[in-house]
């Protein structure tokens, strides 16, 4: 058992945890949070692959590491867009519900322009 295996299993579990939260939690903000958990798990798997690619003088394979760095930035940008959409939706409907029935009864007058 090495550090790579321990954190690989940890990443797999975090991905599963995030997937469950994204499906089961009805609140959009919590779905976004869960999605971030899911992506962090996937990044961790990349980290494990990078760590396993360590040869002689190198602590790890730099290519997966660079991909993760790109991934983290893109994930943050996606989260920012999702949060902006959610806040706009909340401002327009006064609610954060995603269920169609509840949305129909929401006050429509607050939708501007």
């Amino acid at each position, binding site marked *: 058992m090495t550090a790579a295996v321990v954190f690989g299993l940890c990443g797999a579990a975090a991905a599963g945890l*995030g997937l469950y939260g994204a499906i089961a939690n009805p609140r959009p903000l919590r779905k976004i949070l869960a999605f*971030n958990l899911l992506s962090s798990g996937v990044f961790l798997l990349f980290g494990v692959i990078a760590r396993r690619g360590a040869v002689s003088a190198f602590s790890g394979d730099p290519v997966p590491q660079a991909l993760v760095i790109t991934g983290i930035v893109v994930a943050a940008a996606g989260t920012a*867009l999702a949060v902006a959409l959610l806040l706009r939706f*909340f401002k327009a409907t006064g609610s954060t519900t995603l269920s169609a029935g509840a949305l129909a009864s929401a006050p429509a007058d607050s939708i501007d322009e």
Partner: protein
Amino acid sequence: MTSDIILDCILAALVLAVGCWVIVVRDSFAAAVGFVAYGLLLTLVWVRLDAIDVALMEGAIGSGLTGALLLRASSRLGAKEQSTAAEQPGVMLRTVAALLSVIVAAMLATAVLYLPDPAPTLAPEAAANASATGMANPVTNVLMAFRAMDTMLEKVVLLVALAGVWSLARDRYWGGRPGPRFRSDPKDPLALLAQTLPPLGIVVGIYMLWEGADAPGGAFQGGTIIAAMWLLAVIAGLTDTPPVSNRRVRLALIAGPLLFLIVGFGGLWLGEAFLAYPVAYAKPLLLVIEFAMTLTVAVTLGLLIVGPPEREGAP
């Protein structure tokens, strides 16, 4: 060796415990705080995996900026959001979701346990070609030279995301200033922090950019720290966000990708291919791109966090 493994196991257990808490806790603000803690623990995991560049990134963006974004969103949604919790899906759906998640996690875990041995690696190739760029940090070499296309496109993704955020503004606020105007209170400890920390933070950010050539760090990490310093000054009310129609802001936003493209097409014309740097000028060219990118990353991330324009632009 064994004590290392025990520590790693404890760290992994902590990460998963905080992760569980983020998913199940009722209060969304608490979940967002938990997410920041989760990100910081994850930073330690990246250190343990000897990926210091990624650890810096996770700490700065994954935990820091994303955390700030989620905290702000949860406080804006407030108690109203809590009512949506009543729409929790039935036991049936939750069981199926749990089952699906367990299957996915188990499959990933199996993949981890049965990874090929010896592991395929590009580390020797990355090291063998490091002389082409004159930089010693292999991760920076991959980001800026060997896989420069990814990095350039990522900058474009950031711009598209920002355009998406801005397009959510109400028509009458288009071109205006994003976010609320925070009021400055000179007696507030936050104001003191926002006056003392940014000078240090900006130096650290530039240092990280500069050191990124040979040591862990780089344009992303440096840019994120500078963005955080700017956000701190905005939240403390010491400065205001610029109108999004401001020409200088827009120039800063496109500086990184534009320079990248110019150098890229220059490579097509002078060198061998798109984004192929002439070896003799590789390092200075990369440094110029990195400086422009740091500026772009800082401005883009900062503006992504403050959100769409919400006020008239006129001073």
